[in-house]
């Protein structure tokens, strides 16, 4: 998930019947901010939060500070397993340090040292067909590949190349790390495979409206 802050209006210049959407009270403002921070991948600046919520930066700043205290359990409340921290000019929810080990164990269990057969096949498809979108890989493999693609990207074997300007679909390709694992210097060194192998996507989208 990527946050596209560039498309947010810089000012309140475009008030689209804001009254309904805009959080009315400070409490609701905090709730709206935590909702955004829950799904935001990149740290969010106060300005971008204020712009999205159409509230003054100062109000947003105060709300963020209250959220930090809230999650830290400052006023006798619960100290959460997560915390709100400012990094690189923006705010993001992180795992609280006290739970790092628990989370690290979980991450280790979720990421075995060997790639699954499904992950390897998906990697092979991406290597030979790049740039390629997730849905095209899914069409070829006839399974959903979302989580496998996440794994491969997390392993640094594939990366997002570009986003199709029309469809918004992300195109993936392999990384130098993958070449390194295969012991080659360039994609040209991949052994040729039959050019006749269909891309499998034909007639596939026709079932969607």
């Amino acid at each position, binding site marked *: *998930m990527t946050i596209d802050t560039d498309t947010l209006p810089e000012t309140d210049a475009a008030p689209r019947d804001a009254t309904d959407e805009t959080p009315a009270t400070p409490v609701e403002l905090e709730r709206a901010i935590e909702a955004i921070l*829950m*799904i*935001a*991948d990149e740290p969010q600046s106060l300005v971008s939060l204020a712009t999205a919520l159409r509230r003054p930066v100062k109000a947003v700043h105060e709300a963020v500070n209250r959220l930090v205290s809230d999650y830290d359990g400052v006023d006798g409340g619960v100290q959460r397993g997560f915390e709100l921290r400012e990094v690189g000019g923006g705010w993001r929810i*992180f*795992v609280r340090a006290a739970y*790092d080990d628990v*989370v*690290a164990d979980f*991450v*280790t269990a979720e*990421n*075995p*040292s*060997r*790639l699954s057969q499904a992950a*390897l*096949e*998906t990697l*092979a*498809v991406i*290597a*030979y*067909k790049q740039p390629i979108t997730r849905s095209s890989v899914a069409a*070829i*493999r*006839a399974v959903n590949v979302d989580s496998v693609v996440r794994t491969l990207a*997390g*392993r640094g074997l594939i990366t997002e190349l570009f986003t199709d300007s029309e469809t918004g679909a992300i195109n993936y390709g392999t990384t130098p790390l993958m070449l390194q*694992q*295969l*012991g*080659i210097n360039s994609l040209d*060194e*991949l*052994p*040729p*495979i*039959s050019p006749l*192998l*269909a*891309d*499998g996507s034909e007639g596939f989208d026709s079932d969607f409206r």
Partner: protein
Amino acid sequence: MALSPDAHAVDGSTTSLAGPAPDARPAGFQVALSNFEGPFDLLLSLIGKHELDITEISLSRVTNEFIAYLSRVDSALELDQASEFLVVAATLLDLKVAGLLPQGELVDAEDVALLEARDLLFARLLQYRAFKEASAWFAGHLDAEAKRHTRSVRLEEKFRARTPELVWTLTLDDFAALATLALTPREIPVVGLDHLHAPLVSIREQAAHVVAMLRSGESMTFRQLIAGADQKGVVVARFLAVLELYRHAALSFEQLEPLGELTLRWSAENWSEDNLANLGADYDN
């Protein structure tokens, strides 16, 4: 197989599902064939238009319209799609005949068979409609859930750094082999000729018979084609084989008037025996 009286209660209970009842579509009968998903869809639309209870016998009106509708279908594409409808049309014709029979005076097995065919069609229509209505629930839930947002963020770097190092054992050739495997089109496998439990009457065998009789180029009526076939199952299978061959553009047929003589003609340009292998696979189970 007969429907229990419970079947009549179905109409009342369908409203419990979310979404508009599919058979209430206002477009009615005049819409293009491509708007229907299949023969059952069209039938349901017809039944809905007349607000007929699906379990009533008075389907003859629907039958007439259905046949009239088919007669208006003229483009090659639509005709192609319409071939699937012929099965339903044939059943409906049977139903119409059955509807004309005096009630309670069933004398021979053929009449019973017609009524069973009617029950079967009703039952299948009910089943189809049930799934169609359930699909509205699916559509609603898929749409609602697609609007929801889950936390799914990039792993913090400190955790990523602690994931176990990748063990890579594939050689370059292994990798290429894997790619070949993954990229080979996943043919949806079809039931081949080699399976052990053939249907009682094989549509494939009947198709082979039809091919053998028509391939010389002489046109032939369906009546001639089934001459000598003494089992009902063989006649049915041979008719289905004709429909299948028509779907494969291996033959054309001509019928000058409704219920008139059906004349068949071989029309395949490139026909190989391999084409027979997959024929009728839809009817296998």
